[in-house]
């Protein structure tokens, strides 16, 4: 019944994140949009690894007689991607805070001393 609906959700999240990155003017909002794209990427990778009817890839909780597990590699990759996403988010917000200290503004149209 769900069909390829999760893929559609991933695609919509990507496009919304891109629109946020390109058209927002506030540095903090841009960071939020980057977070949305990160969330979309994580959702995408996990979605790729789902096997319908599969069980958790943990033998402790798998229940007896279950041989069909969902793919474990995407989960390991996503775990890495989530922590990397947190690291970049924290750094980007720190930059935004420091830029606010120097420029007194978070607007990208004010933060453009380097140009030409």
């Amino acid at each position: 019944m769900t069909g390829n609906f999760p893929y559609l959700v991933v695609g919509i999240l990507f496009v919304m994140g891109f629109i946020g990155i390109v058209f927002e003017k506030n540095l903090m909002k841009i960071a939020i949009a980057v977070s949305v794209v990160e969330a979309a990427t994580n959702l995408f990778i996990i979605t790729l690894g789902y096997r319908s009817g599969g069980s958790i890839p943990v033998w402790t909780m798998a229940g007896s007689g279950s041989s069909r597990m969902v793919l474990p590699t995407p989960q390991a990759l996503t775990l890495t991607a989530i922590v990397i996403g947190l690291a970049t988010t924290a750094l980007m917000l720190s930059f935004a805070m420091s830029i606010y200290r120097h420029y007194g503004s978070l607007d990208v149209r004010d933060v453009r001393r380097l140009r030409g």
Partner: protein
Amino acid sequence: MIEVLHLSILVTIVVSGFLTIWFRNLLSSVISLAVLSLFISLEFFFMQAPDVAIAEAGIGAGLSTAIYIIALRACGRKQFRKEGER
């Protein structure tokens, strides 16, 4: 039944993602982002990925929201003079 729940979670993800971009107010936007993370972590539970779900709930919904709110506090008021710039 479980399919309906799954679909409604996916719809909530889209709606909260849209609201995250849509809100002008930064604090509302951050809260929407936390909701987005929370529902994505629920979606991970549905896709049998509890490892990632715990990570997403702890990091995405908990910590990064805290970091965002700290950053918003630093930028909310005009408290630094502009003359100090080089």
